[in-house]
């Protein structure tokens, strides 16, 4: 899932300073799951923005709405009338949703979230990065743990000298990806795999190759 975190209120207030009728638009997909931009967070942010604006003598009119998915044009189309009645849109979707809105509507669209990473949930309320979207998945040879997303140096051939006690030298909160990979390989009896040198990565499948696109010819019209 795509994870995100709310931007500081001050930044948002700066964006919407010139406007008074706001459409605050949540997304019921990833950002709901990571507690950043679902209906609940939309409600909280609406209250917070209204109160903060009121403090400076301004009454904001905020329409709260949450789309099933903000990164699809059909869903985004649903809010046409709401957008028409708003001066600006504050989107609580990830960057994809914000852009979908911005591409569709000729109104200012501001992101309420900082889109963080593709991750999974470690436990309730904790998400960590799992995938860098490199476009050429290595997990088959790294015991199912990605060194590109989860090693601070993106090392593809083993732990650096800073790996100690299972954690990364960057911060003790982060496990050493290669430590995890090694444990997995041991568990799977595949430690020999480790001796294979993973050659230099082809970054053009990653963002290094510019904006990427997937076209399924059978589906695409």
């Amino acid at each position: 899932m795509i994870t995100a975190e709310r931007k500081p209120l001050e930044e948002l207030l700066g964006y919407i300073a010139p406007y008074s009728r706001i459409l605050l638009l949540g997304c019921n997909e990833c950002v709901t799951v990571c507690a950043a931009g679902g209906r609940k967070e939309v409600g909280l942010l609406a209250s917070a923005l209204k109160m903060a604006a009121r403090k400076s003598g301004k009454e904001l009119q905020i329409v709260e709405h949450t789309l099933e998915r903000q990164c699809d044009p059909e869903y985004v189309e649903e809010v046409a009338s709401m957008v028409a009645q708003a001066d600006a849109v504050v989107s609580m979707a990830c960057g994809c949703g914000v852009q979908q809105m911005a591409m569709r509507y000729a109104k200012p669209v501001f992101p309420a979230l900082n889109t963080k990473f593709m991750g999974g949930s470690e436990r309730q309320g904790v998400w960590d990065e799992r995938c860098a979207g490199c476009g050429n998945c290595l997990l088959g040879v790294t015991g199912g743990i990605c060194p590109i997303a989860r090693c601070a140096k993106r090392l593809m051939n083993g732990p650096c000298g800073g790996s100690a006690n299972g954690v990364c030298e960057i911060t003790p909160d982060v496990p050493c990806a290669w430590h995890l990979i090694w444990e997995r390989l041991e568990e799977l009896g595949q430690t020999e795999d480790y001796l294979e040198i993973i050659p230099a990565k082809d970054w053009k499948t990653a963002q290094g190759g510019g904006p990427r696109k997937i076209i399924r010819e059978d589906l695409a019209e």
Partner: protein
Amino acid sequence: MQKKTKLQSNGSVLVVGGGLGGIRAALDLAEARKDVILVDKAPCIGGLMTQLDRTFPTNNCDLCTVAPFTAKDSRGGHLDMRGLTTVTAVKGKEGNFTVSLMTAPRFVNVEKCTACGECQRKYPECVSFAPGLDPRAPTCMRYPKATPYAYVIDMAKCADKEGLKQCCPVGAIETDALPKVEEAQCGSIILAAGAALFDPSHLDYFGYAAQPDVVTSLEYERILSASGPTGGKLLRPSNGQPPKKVAWIQCVGSRGLQKGAGAYCSSACCMFALKEAMVTRERFDSEIETTIFYMDMRAFGKDYEKYLNRAKEQYGVRLVHSRPHDVLRPVGMDKLQILYTVDEAPKHITEEFDMVVLSTGFKMNEDVKKLAEDLAVELYADGFPKTDCFNAVATSVPGVYVCGTLQGGKDIPETMTQASAASCLAGAKVAVTPRPKAELPAVTPECAGSPRVGVLVTLCDHESTALDTTALVEYAKSIPHVVCAAAFEAACDPSSFDAVKAAILANGVNRVVVAGSSPRYELEKYQAMLAPVGINKYLIEVANIREQAAWVHAGEPAAANAKAKQLVAMAVAGVMAAKPLADHVVPANKNALVVGGGVTGMTAALELAGQGAKVCLVEKTAELGGVARNLVKTIEGGDVQALIADLVEKTTSHPNIKVFTATEIVDHSGQVGLFRTGLSVNGAYKEIEHGATILATGATPNQPQAFLLGENSRVCTQLDLQKVVNEQPKEVKKWKNVVMIQCVGSRDADNPNCSRLCCQSSIKNALAILKENPNARIFVLYRDLRTYGRFEEYYQKARELGVIFVRYSVDNPPKVEAAGHYANVTFTDVIMGRQVVVSADCVGLSTGFVASRKSNEALAKVFGLPLTDDGYFAEMHVKLRPVDMDKAGFFVAGCAHSPKVIAENLTQARAAASRAMTVLANDTLVQEAKFAHVDRARCAACLVCVRACPFDVPQITVDDKGLGRSYIDPVKCHGCGTCAAECPAKAIQLNQFEDVQILSSLDQLLAKVNA
């Protein structure tokens, strides 16, 4: 099947007396699906309590919490209630009594009478007279709204039968009615007809007969009462002026003090006087001086000591330890004089008062005495029935039980406990009768129609002196969508609900706001009450204007009124946003869990098992018997060890009882009728299912660090002392001086309550010592000697035998010092005015009991039950529900509730069993719509609810479209709402507490109310 079946008849239980005790007994039986006939010679039920203004220790009336359930359409038709009815003859024996009942004519057709009052206005002399002050009450009914709600004609006084008949607009008056005589088959009989009150007319020195301003405590209560002769104004009967100084004189008609008085203590009068004094200052005028002349302030009940402290400290009630000898009104004076002496000074004191209240005790009711004699029940000389020393509700005649003040003077909680205990024993003698299958009201579309709100203000005037209920009703009418609003000062009366129901139907009301006391009391009651008129139980909201406005802001009427309005507005907003919901029915588990294998637990288990319930009895230690194993005899001479042996034998051999010793409670889940509890049996985990739970975990003998206890071999507790007397009589024979010190480790800062049983235990031990060694000098150093009830007689006996009782004050406690072979006890004799030193062979400390706090806390945590401040289990309602707990299906008995003597523990055990049977009698269980539900269209299947739920209820399930969404099983959901609060998609709502309900309440709450 049980052997007991043989004993069971197809008959009913006859309950004689429709006071609180009789009602409770009858309701317990009816709820346990036994047929009951409840008779009262009065035209309506309610008994003595209905004449009280307020009752201790809550200082409210609370009748409304029981009376509505006596309504004829409730309790599945098991309850046959008959007013104006007496028992004329009884034949047969246990299991098969034939009773003759005579019902006097009422001359009013109850079905037709609307209580319009026309007959009373035109023929005031014909309306039956109720006891009390004269001229009295605005209506002649005994309490504001009686059950049945109709007048009674006294035909003997009627000169114009035809005119009377004609005056009734609905033709309800039947001048030719005749008495009705019927016979009924009964398996057992409960006598609950109450007691009479002592009449002090013959005591010239108290001036009761001559002085209008000398009244009995019940009369004073009537004066305070809103339904009383002064309409709830406190006025002197002599001149109609408000009094400035009121005195109470205790022990009138009790403790053998006056001519005709019983030798017993009436047990309730001290608390009664404290309550009247507090209410006087609280409700009428805090400037009124209130003085209580007492001998021993007997606040021995649960938390009563705190009540006494509140009276002294918070309300400034003055307590004078003295027995006044005269109440006079010198000629030409309009004030009364009380003549008395105090301990500290021999000279007479004369003090003036405006009113004097005589705290009159109980005495046997002559009618009841006659019935008891007809039944051949053995009686004491004073007419009260003799009961077994281990079974306070069993008379000498099998199948005949007693409860309440008929058994001896007592307060309401004890009456309620005995009533349930009596119903337990009486109910065991009759069979369960099938109950018609309960139909749950369907959620009809009308429920959800456009909101038409009805507001019922149900707070009694006397509970709400700070509130203007009329203005509140007017305000309620002004709230949008409120189609009708009315005050019903009759929450205690089921028939007044007919008017409510009519108003609801007439106005097409589909949502109701009840403005009254806490929803903890009101909600369930009104849900049941309004279901028949189609009000969905979830479309009822309670505005707690009693606890949250009338009471808490009693001193600021303007604020209280404004807040009450706001609370009503909030409730209207809440109910408008509410949704109609349907309950579910599921099969109920009919087994019981009893926690605690002492005498209380075993008794409860045996009573339940005897009525066919399968019982798990769990004991923490390796042995049954509990603290009672340390006891030898009761004060009456009952052999405690024999009792334990008998209970252990019966318990362990009963086919319906499974005993688990060395067992702890590990975890618990579920709800009434469907509990699941995990046990650690000798370390192995075992799970049991049960429908009800009784806690009988006892208490811990206190071992305070005081008076060299544990340091000096001469100093011991009363428990130890008893053992020494029993086991080493030779030692006892050598003793010259014995000193007993009362209230050690009780009634102090660490343990503010009274341990209740220590006074009688020191007297028991004193008598036992004197039996071995009549020459021993025994001193009992006490603060208040609390030998309530018949214990008083043992106290008198001890005095007669030369036991020296010396009062000490808490500021000047005795001292105990080691002095060679002896322990020297130094104390001040107030009457002699000097210090005394006694070289004691033995110092017996009355150390009482403390709650087993640690284990109680652990159990409370597992079961989710509340404890009192001092660590005992808290009952649901200190007065009316003394063995029920806040969590449905949980009951408490014995010392786990508060310290008490064995007989009282066993009574409570039986009461708890009776209450538990009301649960276990149900084959099915209504599951409230108190669960969270998921809007699957909104659900993002994020798992937040799955992870947040403390009970692991939500699951992601795949629907027929293949969509994985959260599903919350309504049967398993506990209704806490955590998932709803955490759901990031706002897809979960908790029934009854939906966001829209909370937010609209908030809207109202934060909107300004136009006062």
